[in-house]
C-alpha cells in the first residue's frame, strides 16, 4: 500500500492513501499534536469532503480502536523528555542468535549501556520485560539509550 507523505509548512505533515474501495483517506498530524482525519471527495480528488480535527487523546483512542499500538508516539515522548536519549525498535529476525533465548542472556545493558524497555509481540506491548523473558522470531524489541548504544543493541541482537 502506498502512503503518500506531504509536509505542510507551518501546520505539520499529511499522510494519505487510497483504499481498495477506491476512496482516498488522509491524516494530518499537526505540530501541536492534534490530528485531522480527512476523507477526500469521490468526485474532486483534491478536495476533502470531511475533515475532522482530533485532539491528541482522541487520536490515540481512534488508533487503538483501529488496532494499532501507538508505541511510536510513546517513544517520541520519551526522547523528548530526556534530551540526548533515543528510542529504537529492533525486530528479532529468524537468523538472530537470540531467537528463542532469554533476555538475560543478551546482557544488553552491561554490554551496550542501553535498556530494553518493552517488547511488542502480536500488537501487544509487554512493558518492562524481565531477564527470564524468552524472545521469539518476530518480536519487536524497544530499546532506549544514546544513539550509539541503541545501535549497538541492534548489532547484538542481529549478530550476537
Amino acid at each position, binding site marked *: 500500500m502506498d502512503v503518500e507523505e506531504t509536509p505542510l509548512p507551518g501546520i505539520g505533515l499529511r499522510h494519505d492513501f487510497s483504499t481498495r474501495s477506491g476512496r482516498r483517506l488522509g491524516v494530518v498530524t499537526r505540530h501541536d499534536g492534534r490530528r485531522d482525519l480527512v476523507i*477526500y471527495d469521490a468526485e474532486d480528488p*483534491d*478536495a476533502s469532503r*470531511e475533515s475532522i480535527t482530533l485532539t491528541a487523546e482522541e487520536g490515540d483512542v481512534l488508533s487503538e480502536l483501529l488496532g494499532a499500538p501507538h508505541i511510536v508516539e510513546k517513544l517520541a515522548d520519551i526522547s523528548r*523528555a*530526556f*534530551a540526548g536519549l533515543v528510542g529504537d525498535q529492533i525486530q528479532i529476525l529468524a537468523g538472530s542468535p537470540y531467537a528463542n533465548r532469554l533476555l538475560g542472556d543478551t546482557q544488553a545493558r552491561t554490554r551496550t549501556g542501553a535498556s530494553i524497555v518493552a517488547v511488542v509481540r502480536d500488537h501487544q506491548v509487554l512493558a518492562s520485560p524481565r531477564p527470564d523473558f524468552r524472545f521469539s522470531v518476530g518480536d519487536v524489541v524497544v530499546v532506549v539509550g544514546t544513539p550509539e548504544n541503541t545501535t549497538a543493541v541492534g548489532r547484538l541482537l542481529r549478530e550476537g
Partner: protein
Amino acid sequence: MHDTATTFLELGAVLFVLGVLGHLASRFSISPIPLYLVAGLAFGHGGLLPLGASEEFIEIGAELGVILLLLTLGLEYTAEELLYGLRRQASAGVLDLTVNAVPGVVAAFVLGWGPLAAVVMGGVTAISSSGIIAKVLGDLGRIGNRETPVVLSVLVLEDLAMAAYLPVLTALLAHHTLARGSLTVAVALGALVAVLYIALRHSEKVTLLVYSARSDRNDEVLLLRSLGLTMFVAGVAQRMQVSAAVGAFLVGIALSGPVAEGAREVLTPLRDLFAAVFFVFFGLQTDPAHIPSALPAASLLAVSGVITKVATGWWAARRAGIASMGRYRAGAALVARGEFSIVIAGLAVVAGVNAKLGPLAACYVLLMAVLGPLAARFVEPTVRTFRRWSQRRQPSGPTVTGDV
C-alpha cells in the same frame, strides 16, 4: 498622577473597543484586521476620539507588535520546511512575487509618487496574509486538501522573500546610497543564510538559550527568555539597520521543536494584544479625510490583486498536478492581504515617503482582508455557476465539467 489616569482611560477605551470588534469578527468569522484599522482611523487625529496621553505607549506597542508578528511567523516554520518550500515551489514563488508586485509598482508610478514609493507599494500588494489564510483554510476544513501544500509553499516563499525585502526597504528608506544599502542587504542575507544553517545543524543549542529540555516546562521562564532573546536580537538588527522585524523572524526560525511550540503558545496572547495595537497605530497615523480620495485607486488595486493572486495560485497548483477546481481554490486562498502589507506600509509611513501612501495601503488592506476570505469561501460555487452559464451559451462546445 493626572497623566497616568488619562493614559489608562484612553488605553482602556481603545482595548475594550478592540475586544468588542474582535468579538464581532469572530462571530461573523471574518478577519479582525480591517476592523482594528477602522478603529484606528476612528480614533486619533481627525477622528472621533483624540488620543493624546497614550500615544507614546501605542507607538512602542506597535513596534513590539511588528516584532511579535514576525517572531511568531518564524516559529511557525522549521528550517527544513523553509528549504522544502524553496525546493518545491521556487518558480511559483518568483512568479507570485513578480506578478503581484507589478500592480503596486505601476500604481505608485501612475500616481507620480516616485521609485521609493514603488518599492513600498510592490511589497504591499505582493505579500499575502499567512495569518488570515491559515485561519480561512482551517475554518473551511481545507487543511487536508491536496492543493493546500501548494498554497503553504507559496506563503513560505513570500515570507522568506520578506526576510530579504525588509532590509532592502529599511536601507532605502533610511536614505542610504545604493552602495551603503547593498552592504546592509548583504549583511541581512548573510545573517539569513547563517541562521538557516544554524537552525538546520545546531538548533538544539539555540534552543538551550531559551529553555532546557531537562527541566520541566515553565511558561514564565519560556516567555521571558524567548521574548528577551528576540528583543535583543531585534535591537542588534535595528542597530545594524537590517530591520528589527527580520531579526525577530530569524530568531523564530532558529528556535525549533517542542520549545518553538511552547514559545508560540505563551507568546500568542501577547502577539494578539500588540498586533492589535499595531493596526490601531497604523490607523491612527492615517487621516480618515484622505480615505475617500484613496478609494478609487485602492479598488483598482484590489481588483488586480484578486486576479493576479488567483492566476499565480492557479498556475502553481497546475504545476503540482492539481485538477481544475483545486487550482481555483488555491488561487482564491492566496487573495487575502493583511498584517504584512501593513508592516511594509508602516515602515514607509514612519519614514514619511508620501502622505497619501498610508491611506491607500489602509484602504487596500481593508478591501483585501475582507475580499480574501470571501474569495476562498465562494470560489467553488462561482466557478460552477460560470461553467454552467458558459455551457448554456455554447451547448455544442466542449464540456468542461468532466475535468472538475
